[in-house]
């Protein structure tokens, strides 16, 4: 809203004087120059964040998209598996009909870009190669406005993808609003891989009991991490707690990766 207000205000103030015709290229060029600056400022040293989430419910995915964009995206490159509610933007596809102009519109739409599709061994290694390409991911991240990247996978490959992403990401954010078989497997996997200490559990504000029960059911007694709740608009009920949790997770990730030290794999 602030950006829109600024834009409108500037347009009115200038009385459209300098805003006609090819002058628009100056603005588009400046916009892209700033995008490049934003992408290189972290010098490829950004955290990778895995977003685990329930599949299949459109309203929940919409809220989670806002959460990913607002609270998680700024801190690193976010990855999640693709489903029908979290996939490349159809609008952006249609804009391809208008040529390269879509590249100027994409940062405004903040689409979820597909970074890999895994359906066999080679494409699985392709996902690993993609994860290793920090500079490209940095730019794609600013191009998509910090939205989570999606990874498409065949049914028999999604567990491998999660495994690879578990090892290869610094922070894990898991939405446990609706825990079914897939999410249950992921929770158990987090525990077995000793990844709970870098996991932040979140849930939709309408399902706190279900989330709590799911953790109690799938984790051993005593291992009951806090659950942070968000609403339909993508706002956290305890935003400061989430920021604190992210800070702590980042702090751990930074201390884990001193030069010469490799992340633990088990």
């Amino acid at each position, binding site marked *: 809203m602030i*950006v*829109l207000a*600024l*834009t409108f205000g*500037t*347009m009115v103030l200038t*009385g*459209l004087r300098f*805003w*006609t*015709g090819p002058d*628009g290229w*100056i*603005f*588009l060029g400046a*916009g892209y120059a*700033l*995008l490049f*600056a*934003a992408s290189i400022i*972290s010098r*490829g*040293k*950004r*955290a990778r964040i895995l977003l685990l989430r329930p599949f299949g419910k459109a309203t929940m995915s919409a809220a989670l998209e806002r959460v990913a964009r607002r609270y998680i995206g*700024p801190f690193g490159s976010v990855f999640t598996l693709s489903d029908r509610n979290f996939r490349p933007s159809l609008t952006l*596809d*249609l804009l*391809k009909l208008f040529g390269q102009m879509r590249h*100027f*519109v994409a*940062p*405004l739409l903040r689409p979820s870009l*597909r970074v890999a*599709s895994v359906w066999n*061994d*080679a*494409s*699985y*290694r*392709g996902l*690993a*190669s*993609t994860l*290793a*390409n*920090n500079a490209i991911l940095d730019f794609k991240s600013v191009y998509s406005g*910090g939205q989570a990247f999606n990874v498409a996978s065949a049914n028999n490959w999604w567990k*491998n993808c999660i*495994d*690879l992403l578990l*090892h*290869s990401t610094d922070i894990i954010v898991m939405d446990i609003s609706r825990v079914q078989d897939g999410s249950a497997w992921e929770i158990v996997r987090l525990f077995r891989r000793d990844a709970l200490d870098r996991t932040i559990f979140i849930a939709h504000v309408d399902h706190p009991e279900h989330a709590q029960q799911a953790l109690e059911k799938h984790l051993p007694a005593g291992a009951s991490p806090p659950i942070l709740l968000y609403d339909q608009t993508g706002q956290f009920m305890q935003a400061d707690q989430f920021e604190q949790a992210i800070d702590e997770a*980042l*702090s751990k990730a*930074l201390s*884990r990766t001193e030069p010469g*030290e*490799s992340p633990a*794999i088990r």
Partner: protein
Amino acid sequence: MQSIYSPARASAASLLIFFILVMVLLGSEAQSAPASLSTIGLPIALASTLYFSVRWISLARSSHQPQRSLPAGSTVSFDPAAPRGWTTSAQDHAAKVENTVAALGNDELIAVYVHPDSSSPVRAQASQELTSRGITSDDIGGWMPSAERLFVPSALQGSSPLPAYLATVRIRTTLMELARFFLIAGVANFFVVYPILRTSIFRCGSTRPSRFGCFPLLSR
């Protein structure tokens, strides 16, 4: 699906259908074609064009996958000594395994990934290398069937401490917001402001397109 459709083939078909559509339209216009051709052919051509265009878009999207995957038969293994943790050639593989074993020690070596094909000569070579060092399959938990243990080292190696990292995040976010502002301005200029100023009501009857329309105050 992949074997039948390819982006090149689909776009060629799309172009062909489009060409037929144009020919039908031209023929209909010149009245050199029978009426049934335009009434039947036109909807078919339109529908086909639409279908192939959508198909082409989705294929173009799906074909935009990373092409950096390794060629078939090559291997990937974790090697902490290598900057990106990769080795791609079969010849290097044994040496990399040896390095990995030397770096980690038998106790810490928990996984080695080679090509899932058990008949692969690379796998036999790696197996021989490990056996010669007294490491058996039991020690490494068996061969991973499909690179389950594959992982990419963290990008945070050598990063600044948390306050500096968060400062970078803030600067990055600010730059992105500024970029969005300029992009909105540019897109609005092209799609809203410029077309409006180019419409005839702003030209006040002028036969020549005017940069600033009929606003005298805006004209220099």
